[in-house]
């Protein structure tokens, strides 16, 4: 028994089984939620969500474009609600397809965004685990999530399921539109299942490495999470868990932008830096360059990668994650070490999720701050 065991870690260890279980649940649902004529009418796709759901949208944006050949953008709920230009909504019947993700389904801004999109002629698909929530009630179609309950921790299981649901939708839309054959599409789906098995096999070694990193980094006050392309969303997810679980300052940034901004920071040996850098990412050569600069600066570094040739040093730890046959499916599991890191740091500093919504944070009890908000449809 790991003496730093924690709820986030237990969630991570549940992910391999969750992948298999959720695949069985979601694969048939993603076949039925949109009809063939509806799929053929899509001219543009907008993905939206808040927090982890926003990260899931970013994690799958490139997958949607590569698998469907349909231009896809990720728009925050607030921008979709208040700023997205009306002439870009309903520009063709039932367009764009707006896919809104919220497992809790009760986030006010998501409800507002979906309502506005419907008002001006978009077609909306809500992906949610709450059939009575505002997202399900306002969406044109609903892809219902059914995530088995588990010990509470900053979103880990729900993030995986959101990513999986979006990936399955992208595969489905591309398959129906004839971008690739049914056999090729099934192979992609099986690649997701295979990742679960790989993750299960890799978790013990991954866990041991991350625990050692957390022990070295426990007194740091700042963390950088860096990634590009498919890996950017994973970096976003990692920084979010530091804020939620540990209550310390964290930043997520694109690999290129890190060299425009974050590297200027002083106390470089006291900033825990996580670089997500997979071998099949088109940004890989830049990631390698940036890794060199990070080491020059003396940044304490954890590199999350599917490569297996990294040699750990006192400064740098290489954390190996599953290698997939289809790079677009990588975001499904590559966040696992980042969740482990946040969980261990939480234990080591004695923090409580979301500061327990106590004292000055009490206004956020029960998600009130994001569930209750003035709705403006213009």
């Amino acid at each position, binding site marked *: 028994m790991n003496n730093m065991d924690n709820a986030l870690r237990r969630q991570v260890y549940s992910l391999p089984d969750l992948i298999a279980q959720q695949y069985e649940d979601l694969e048939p649902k993603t*076949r039925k939620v949109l*009809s*063939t*004529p509806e799929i*053929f009418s899509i001219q543009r796709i907008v993905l939206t969500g808040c927090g982890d759901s926003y990260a899931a949208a970013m994690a799958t944006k490139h997958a949607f474009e590569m698998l469907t050949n349909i231009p896809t953008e990720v728009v925050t709920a607030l921008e979709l609600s208040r700023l997205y230009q009306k002439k870009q909504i309903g520009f063709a019947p039932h367009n764009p397809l707006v896919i809104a993700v919220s497992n809790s389904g009760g986030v006010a801004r998501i409800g507002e965004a979906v309502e506005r999109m419907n008002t001006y002629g978009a077609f909306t698909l809500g992906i949610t685990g709450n059939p009575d929530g505002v997202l399900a009630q306002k969406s044109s179609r609903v892809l219902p999530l059914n995530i088995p309950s588990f010990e509470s921790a900053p979103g880990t299981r729900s993030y995986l399921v959101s990513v999986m649901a979006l990936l399955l939708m992208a595969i489905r839309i591309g398959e*129906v539109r*004839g971008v690739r*054959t*049914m*056999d090729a599409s099934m192979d992609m789906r099986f690649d997701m299942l295979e990742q679960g098995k790989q993750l299960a096999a890799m978790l013990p070694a991954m866990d041991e490495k991350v625990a050692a990193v957390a022990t070295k980094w426990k007194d740091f006050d700042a963390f950088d999470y860096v990634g590009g392309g498919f890996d950017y969303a994973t970096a976003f997810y990692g920084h979010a868990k530091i804020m939620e679980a540990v209550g310390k300052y964290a930043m997520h940034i694109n690999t290129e932008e890190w060299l425009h901004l974050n590297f200027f920071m002083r106390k470089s040996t006291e900033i825990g830096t996580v670089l997500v850098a997979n071998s099949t990412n088109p940004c890989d050569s830049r990631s390698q360059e940036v890794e060199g600069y990070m080491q020059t600066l003396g940044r304490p570094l954890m590199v999350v990668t599917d490569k297996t040739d990294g040699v750990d040093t006192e400064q740098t730890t290489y954390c190996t994650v599953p290698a997939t046959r289809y790079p677009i499916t990588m975001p499904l599991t590559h966040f696992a070490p980042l969740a482990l890191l946040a969980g261990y740091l939480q234990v080591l500093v004695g923090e409580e999720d979301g500061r327990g919504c106590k004292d000055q944070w009490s206004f956020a009890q029960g998600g009130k701050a994001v569930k209750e908000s003035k709705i403006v449809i213009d």
Partner: protein
Amino acid sequence: MALLKNFKLKTIHNDVVSLTDDIKKYVEESGVKEGMCIIYTPHTTAALTITSFWDPNGFLDLQDDICRLIPTRIDFKHQHDTPQDAAGHIKSSLIGVSLPLIIHDGKLLVGHSQGIYFLEFDGPRNREYFVKILADS
């Protein structure tokens, strides 16, 4: 006497694959002088047919006109898979997945212009077909 053999093939999209030589060879090697040869494929988006082998453009015409008769539409009621798949089911049903042929004098009895063909209505796919030989006595 009865013999059964399984054959594998890899197809490309809307492929037309000649099976004639393999089946003729199998029949001749069987030693059966008089009997029946049944060819069967266990797929629902493919079919078996006999057509002329002289002009390869005839294969294109065949697939083109099958597609004109049963175009890939987006309003098929079968939406579990894809429009291509739904159209393929209909093409397969109409054309058929089996061929009964006669064995005479130790050879497959086919006309001088006739070839046996596997019609792919999807693809690329890994496919198979079976050949059963039944001797008269």
